């Protein structure tokens, strides 16, 4: 190995980042699809000789990780036949090999210089359609991968620099959006070409060994940095159970993702044993996606100190799961909804466990309960009077959710997600592109999970068809409508549910801002299913708020009053959730509030204790009550909080079997722990 001085390393490190950014620019510019340009659902990577992702672009990291798995497969299966040669590029959208689901597609290309293989480049894009029974990413009702768009394992799409038209035709034949997929394929090829060309220039100037050594050093450096942080944190283990509600064949089943994170020294073991078995449906997570989402969550948490190098982060993470569970499914489990279903249960569980670890490790400022909740999503299509077809994916309420509360501050209102470039279009942009009229798009009052530090509020949208007689196809593929999807911390409450409701012919009757989740004439469409909207119908969609952290009764009265003043919290919820009584100024009466809070703490102490199996589920406790400093060595009183006592945002959870359980300090009545809880018999059983 060539010796590498710190100056050359720093120059080459920065240059490799620049090269990857250049690749990302080519990818985005050539593609130009709304998914790529507006949602940044794409990425590029530079990988080392062994296919480890060394430098990745600034967008969604799982595309880059998919490239890594694709390289490994090509090395293992294609070296002899058809061969891996200069100028070759391999394409795949196979979730059982590389990508999280079939609509994520990657192209990887080996790089050769000075008679050796220097590494790989890769590029990934989420395409609009990859076949299957339903337009868009989700094949409604699919029971296995055989009912979905059939994936292509890695194929040599470019041979010696020439695009194989026969193989391209095979790929395009599988999609309803062949023309855009063709452009997206070229975009991935262009990004690889640009990066290869630039790395070759570097190899010529500095020597291939120096470039290769730089890549190894980047990984080593990131690994060392991350391990250094971990060594400062006390060893321990942390658990979380997250849920995924899946509507199929007329009923909702709940899948439980059970994670125990064990941190020893400078390593992390993520053990998903005991998670529900895989679904006869579209929501399963393949092994590459599981590892990808673990790494993604760790990278988001430590991004402040550790550059974007998945390989260095992956080395610190040992991921264990039972094959055949929904978080590590076996062929031919259905996976087409992969990126926003089972993977999110994984992502939330990992984020939660890491954050509990950081909070215990005196790094609460780096901790967050969750980045977002499950997403309410739907695809829609319509024809206008001239016969023009409109089609799109509605992401406002998924991306506009509230983030969870953080260890030292509230969550972010309508600002979820851990990628910097996530965004939703303007209302005007969407109305220009699609036949919708937005009656409102606003922050969701009372949607935030209550807590000493509250979650961020979610987003609410009211839509009605406009300029068309009907929107003939709405395909829902949503989670988080029937289960709490953000874990609360230390006595806080989970965020609200996602809500989808249709009000038939409500437009004529109501004012411009019609739409309320408590209206009695609401029709609730299936969370996985189809409907249509006629002119005058109103669709109400609400994206969840984030979960809270700490006992809501400990939230400073001024903070509650400020939320009431800014319209984020109703007076009723201030009283119900925070015990803050309205005063003569309409906002807060300090004396009455003290009395009410004292009364609420007494009620907690008088409430019946939960069943023993529930008590156990409360999990780890702080050493002492943060309110009265009483030692908690002898445990706490565990009680169940009735959703019905928490007001409208939690109404969807009533009757689901889910409970909010809280740990009460026996000395003062403060909440010191809280969990979402589902009796094990109500969840799909483990493998």
């Amino acid at each position, binding site marked *: 190995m060539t010796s590498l*001085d710190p*100056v050359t390393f*720093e*120059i080459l490190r*920065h*240059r490799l980042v*620049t090269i990857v950014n*250049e690749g990302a*620019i080519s990818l*985005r*510019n*050539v593609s*130009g*699809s*709304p998914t790529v*340009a507006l949602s940044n659902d794409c990425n590029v990577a530079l990988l080392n000789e062994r296919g480890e992702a060394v430098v990745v672009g600034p967008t969604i990291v799982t595309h880059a990780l998919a490239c890594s798995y694709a390289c490994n497969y090509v090395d293992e299966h294609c070296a002899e036949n058809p061969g891996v040669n200069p100028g070759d590029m391999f394409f795949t959208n196979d979730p059982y090999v590389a990508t999280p689901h079939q609509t994520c597609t990657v192209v990887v290309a080996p790089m050769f210089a000075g008679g050796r293989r220097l590494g790989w480049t890769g590029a990934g894009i989420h395409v609009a359609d990859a076949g299957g029974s339903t337009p868009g990413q989700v094949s409604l009702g699919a029971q296995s991968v055989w009912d979905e768009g059939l994936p292509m394992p890695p194929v040599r799409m470019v041979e010696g620099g020439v695009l194989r038209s026969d193989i391209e035709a095979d790929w395009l034949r599988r999609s309803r959006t062949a*023309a855009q997929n063709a*452009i997206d394929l*070229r975009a991935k090829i262009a990004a690889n070409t640009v990066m290869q060309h630039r790395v070759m220039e570097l190899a010529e100037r500095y020597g291939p060994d120096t470039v290769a050594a730089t890549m190894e050093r980047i990984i080593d*450096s990131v690994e*060392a940095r991350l391990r250094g942080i971990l060594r400062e944190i006390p060893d321990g283990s942390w658990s979380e159970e997250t849920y995924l509600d899946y509507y199929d064949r007329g009923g909702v089943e709940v899948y439980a993702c059970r994670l125990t994170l064990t941190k020893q020294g400078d390593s992390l073991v993520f053990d998903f044993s005991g998670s529900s078995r895989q679904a006869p449906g579209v929501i399963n997570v393949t092994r590459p996606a599981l590892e990808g989402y673990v790494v993604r969550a760790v990278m988001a*948490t430590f*991004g*402040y100190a550790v550059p*974007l190098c998945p390989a260095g982060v992956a080395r610190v993470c040992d991921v264990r799961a039972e094959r055949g569970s929904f978080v590590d499914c076996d062929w031919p489990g259905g996976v087409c909804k992969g990126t926003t279903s089972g993977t999110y249960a994984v992502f939330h569980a990992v984020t939660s466990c890491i954050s509990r670890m950081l909070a215990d490790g005196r790094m609460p*400022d780096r*901790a*967050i309960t969750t980045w977002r909740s499950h997403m309410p999503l739907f695809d829609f299509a319509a024809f206008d009077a001239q016969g023009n077809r409109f089609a799109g994916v509605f992401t406002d309420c998924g*991306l*506009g959710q509230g983030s969870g509360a*953080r*260890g030292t501050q509230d969550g*972010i*209102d*309508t*600002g979820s997600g*851990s990628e*910097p*470039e*996530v*965004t*939703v*279009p*303007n*209302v*005007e942009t969407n*109305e*220009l592109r699609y036949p919708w*009229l*937005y*009656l*409102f*798009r*606003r*922050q969701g009052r009372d949607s935030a999970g209550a807590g000493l530090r509250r979650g961020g509020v979610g987003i609410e949208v009211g839509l009605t068809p406009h300029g068309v007689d009907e929107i003939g196809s709405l395909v829902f593929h949503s989670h988080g409508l029937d289960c709490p999807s953000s874990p609360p911390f230390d006595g806080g409450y989970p965020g609200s549910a996602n809500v989808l409701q249709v009000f038939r012919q409500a437009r004529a009757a109501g*004012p*411009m*801002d019609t739409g309320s989740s408590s209206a009695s004439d609401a029709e609730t469409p299936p969370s996985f299913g189809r409907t249509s909207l006629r002119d005058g119908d109103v669709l109400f969609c609400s994206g969840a708020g984030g979960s809270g952290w700490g006992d809501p009764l400990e939230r400073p009265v001024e903070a509650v009053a400020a939320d009431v*003043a*800014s319209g984020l919290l109703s007076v009723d919820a201030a009283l119900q959730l925070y015990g803050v009584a309205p005063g003569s100024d309409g906002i807060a009466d300090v004396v009455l509030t003290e009395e009410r809070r004292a009364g609420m703490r007494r009620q907690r102490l008088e409430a019946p204790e939960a069943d023993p199996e529930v008590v156990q589920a409360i999990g780890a406790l702080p050493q002492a009550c943060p309110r009265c400093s009483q030692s908690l060595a002898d445990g706490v009183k565990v009680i169940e909080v009735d959703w019905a006592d928490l007001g409208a945002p939690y109404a969807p959870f009533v009757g689901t079997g889910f409970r909010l359980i809280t740990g009460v300090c026996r000395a003062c009545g403060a909440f010191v722990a809280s969990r979402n809880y589902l009796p094990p018999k109500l969840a799909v059983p483990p493998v």
Partner: protein
Amino acid sequence: MGSVVGIDVGGTFTDCVVVDDAGRVWMDKAFTTPSNLAEGIVAALANVCDRLGAEVDAVLSEASVFALGTTSLINRVVSRRGARVGFITTRGHEDAVRIGRVLSRSEGLPEQLHYDVAAWNKPEPLFVEGGVRGVVERVDSKGAVVAPLDEEGLLQVVGELRDLGVDSIAVMFLWSFLNPQHELRARELIKQAAPGLPVNLSSDIAPTLGEFERANTTLMNAYLAPGAERDFAEIDARLREHGLRQPLLLMQSNGGLAASEELRRRPVTGLAAGPVGGVVGVQRLAAALGVRNAICTDMGGTSFDVGLIVDGQPRFSGESVVERHRLRVPTVEVTSIGAGGGSIATVDQFGELHVGPHSAGSTPGPVCYGAGGSEPTVTDANVVLGRIGPDSFWSGRRTLDWEAALTAITERVARPLGMDPVRAALGIVDIVDARMADLLRTMTISTGYDPREFVLFAYGGAGPVHVGAYARQLGVSRVYVPLYAPVQSAFGIATGEFRRHQTRAAPMREPYRTEAIRETCAAMEASTQADWGAAALDPNAALYQRFVDMRFRHQVHEIRVPLSPEDTAETLVQRFFASYEQAFGKGSAVAGSPTEIVTFHLVSTLPAAAYSLTRSSDDGRIAPAPIATRDVYFDEKPTATPVFALANLGPGTTLEGPLIVESPNTTVVVHAGQTVEVDGYSNLGIMA
């Protein structure tokens, strides 16, 4: 014809350039006086007048143009010293600014905080707490009224906002840029109900698609206007006391000048004007030198700012992010990274060497300033390497402490890395040069151009020290260091033109009607002509350039396409395809795909002053003698390098590197293999 005066008020210095009757350029600077900018302005002008041998009052009373660039607007935003703004919008959409398209939680953060995800937060909105009110009204995407304006409701919210004590109102209704009737009516009603309360309409301030950006831009204008009125009136009054007769002109973000009255009304158009003066100055010089495509690089103490000139025009963007607020204002694009003379070099616990983005700034500044700085910087490395002479700083008014710089680099960088101090200093400089080359490459590539087709201009205190190296890495073969490099922005301001940039969102879909396109252009032109007339300028003397932002119907990013009056719907589409392939590569545009028009732009310019720079003949070739020879490290062995005084280099002089050129406020480093040539305007041209 009187002289032309350009002033650039910066954070530390106020720079002044005067172009006299004969086309000669004079320059100097003075300290900025933040509490009353006029004092620093007059002081800088007085310094130049000393050189000219003239009185300030005489120069001012005879000046044909007096143009000013100032950071006073941005300072108001940074220090949150704006008006108490009330915001009226379409009911149901009151939260558009707080939602901020989700993006506002991370947009505009400094690079080191970009991935500090747990620390993200949205910026505080520009309206007062509780100062948002929704009113029932609605227009749709065709401009049709879906719900009429609820006039009673409007009057009620105006009353509520008045009770809140607001002193400025912003109104943004959905789709008002297509149909402003509700906003116009709202203004009438507000004027009646609350006479004297300034009203800012989004259809007037930023008539473009996108309610979040349109609202922010309107709010920012409402936030700034009352203060801008006071600031500019004060400066104007002070200059009039000194005899100024011409109107005070101000630099706008679009790179052109406007009368101060206009910026008082639309201060948001001047908010990002700070760094654009330098680019405009390069545009003038490039035109004189016959250069079409230029990269403008300004390296100061804390940042490296880059602008591009393509086909003789600065690249502008319709949008910018100022103090984390996304604004829809035509702005000359300037990209910035934290790489300057003050960038600090550190060795971390893993033995890795980093340079920047943290900076020692101007206080305490680099170690060699002797003002209390202890962390080694890029400037310290240049001093250790002999590239910057100890006596060459700030006209020799401050001596640089070579030994202190060497000690800092030895202790903080060389020793931890087990390196020789010279090697460490070379490393620091190499790293910062490479970072700048990387940024320049990314910037040019992302616009669809190859940096090798550009000429580089370098200015700012540190630019000319480094340009020889970053130009070489970029593969650029020609570099200019302008004679006025130390006051490049003031030069740009002095030589600026009047510029009006009108934007109009007029969404159209193929098949287009040629008539509709021409009507839109004609209406915009008539409106701009009326504006020129109102400013007592001759509309017929103005130049008019038209651009259209277009895209493929199923895509999102827009391409800016030039439009000529002769263009038809057909030729416009052809032009779009050509521009698309220029930006994204041959074959990237799929033939037959339908396109759409999003926004029309009309850029109109008028010369502010008639003058021409003096050009000396290149014939009198002289061979100047170096003023000194000193050891300079270009690699690990010192090279005895001649040092020339810029003042001794006349037009036509050609010298071979390695060499150093020093002037009172800057140092030019010319590497071995590079040739330096002085042109007729006394700029230094460096060829690789």
